[in-house]
């Protein structure tokens, strides 16, 4: 996922299509898994990528889920199925 470029870029947001918070949230798990698997998540989910660049709260959730999945191996244990 690209970070917004500079302060003005952050303020204006990306120019492309944007799914909004709810629909991006629906796809966030797929987006993050694809990215962590080394797949072209931004190409597969361009509207999610645009939204994550535009929405600070959803971007924070994206970072959080990414970090959690990276650490998930250390967290697995008695809660697994």
């Amino acid at each position, binding site marked *: 996922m690209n970070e917004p470029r500079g302060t003005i870029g952050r303020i204006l947001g990306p120019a492309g299509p944007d799914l*909004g918070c709810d629909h991006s949230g629906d796809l966030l798990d797929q987006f993050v898994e694809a990215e962590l698997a080394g797949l072209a998540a931004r190409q597969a989910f361009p509207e999610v990528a645009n939204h994550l660049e535009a929405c600070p709260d959803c971007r924070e959730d994206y970072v959080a889920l990414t970090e959690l999945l990276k650490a998930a191996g250390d967290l697995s244990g008695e809660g697994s199925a």
Partner: protein
Amino acid sequence: MAQDATRPGPSQSQLVQLDDESRQWLARLDPETPDRREAIQALFELLLRGARHETHRRRASLPRQVGDELDDIARQAADDALTVLLRKLDDYRGASRFTTWAYKFAIFEVSAALRREAWRGRSITIEDESWSRLADTNAVDPQAQTNARELMAAIERTVATDLTPRQRDVFVAVLVHGVPIDVVAERHGSSRGAVYKVLHDARQKLRLALAVQGWEVGSGGEAT
């Protein structure tokens, strides 16, 4: 912990595409399964570990008074996430691993709770529009710096003149003062999605107005 949901789980035909662990989770959470209660408890523990991971990761950036409540926040978030997840269990189609899908709800709940707690008791003073601290540091050459300063001044003027009061409030709160959208939504009795829509419309209007003024703004916000 959240009350057991009574809605039926996904049909068996959905399970064939799933990885083994995800299929086991769904099988154990099936309302007809005798050990469903144990599965729900295990799911709660998974969500709690996810929520605690996030509270720990963000601990240093949170106000001290929030730090004392992190475990309560994580527990409540895991409980809320469990309720949402069980309600949406029929929607799970195996597009991601079940644990990834589940963790997502824990993150949504704990992240929103941390934002709200971090801003608890703080006022959003939009009259103090601190545009001056938004100097763009990306530009390196003097001409680009001048362009960026002039574009920023044009943005400030356009926000003041072209946006509706509601758009201006949201725009300045989120993008100038860095108030989380969830916090703006809470104080307006609204939702993140609805507040984001206001912000999105404000940005669209701003881009159009800047174009009318002769600014060519790239997709990443650079003045060209």
